């Protein structure tokens, strides 16, 4: 049976009247804000405290990072288009937009890999100075989250390809989308506090 055309799953009543998967995931995202909040606070405290270079102004390439920021923002648009597609039972649209989101996420990771490699060649490593330590830990954890998001999206894409991601499973795409958008908003903050307010 084509799963995409299957009848919606029966709704299970909960004490809150909300989908427990979604509620649990929002709680997880809440905990993630504290995790990234502590990393951002650490970066801010160490800001300008390095006693030797390279310093942010020596290595940052704002035009390049602006492009990667744009790529990540557009991936969020593709994510919501994937959700809209799965909610209306559009299998082709779901496949297209999930793949596009993962692809843009991979491009963002490519930019980050290039940036890290460039910084390394400029003499900035995790142990060079306080800037290097706090910068690589913060952006490295963000990159790890993007990587997990890309893997998650590709897993959903494979499910959709095999006809196992229909309208009844829209909440799976919605929750993956919540994760993806969270990664996006963390980058919005990093781009401003780390790069533009260098």
């Amino acid at each position: 049976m084509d799963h995409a055309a299957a009848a919606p799953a029966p709704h299970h009543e909960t004490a809150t009247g909300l989908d427990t998967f979604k509620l649990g995931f929002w709680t997880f995202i809440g905990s993630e804000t504290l995790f990234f909040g502590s990393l951002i606070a650490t970066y801010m405290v160490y800001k300008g405290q390095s006693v030797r270079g390279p310093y942010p102004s020596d290595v940052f390439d704002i035009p390049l990072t602006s492009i990667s920021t744009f790529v990540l923002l557009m991936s969020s648009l593709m994510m919501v288009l994937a959700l809209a597609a799965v909610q209306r039972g559009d299998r082709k649209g779901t496949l297209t937009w999930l793949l596009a989101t993962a692809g843009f996420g991979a491009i963002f990771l490519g930019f980050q890999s290039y940036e890290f490699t460039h910084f390394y060649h400029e003499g900035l490593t995790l142990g060079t100075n306080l800037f290097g330590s706090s910068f690589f830990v913060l952006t490295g954890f963000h990159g790890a989250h993007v990587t997990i998001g890309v893997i998650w999206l590709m897993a959903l894409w494979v499910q959709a390809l095999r006809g196992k991601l229909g309208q009844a499973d829209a909440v799976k795409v919605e929750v993956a989308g919540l994760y993806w958008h969270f990664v996006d908003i963390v980058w919005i903050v990093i781009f401003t506090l780390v790069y533009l307010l260098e």
Partner: protein
Amino acid sequence: MAHPTTHGQGGAHGEHSHPGVKQYVTIAAILTIITALEVAVFYIPALASALLYILLALSAGKFALVVMYYMHLKHDSKIFSGVFFAPMSLAVGVVIAMVILFKVIPLI
């Protein structure tokens, strides 16, 4: 499709309709414009003294748009907003406290 889409069938009470494709694209366009403004402001020396406040305001605007429309908090149950904004407020408080304590931005 320009009309708001109904929530996925896995949804439940308290979760309302989501924005439509047209609104999603409009939000993306606004996000792009704000990002371009951020970068432009960064390169204008005359705005250097107000750079912090301008960039924080623009960044907060982008943050709010993504959270409200792409993460659907504007349309979903207020309980989701609560479980997100409560810890986020704590995280923001920690960042502000650390910044003031270590005089990254000397306020006093």
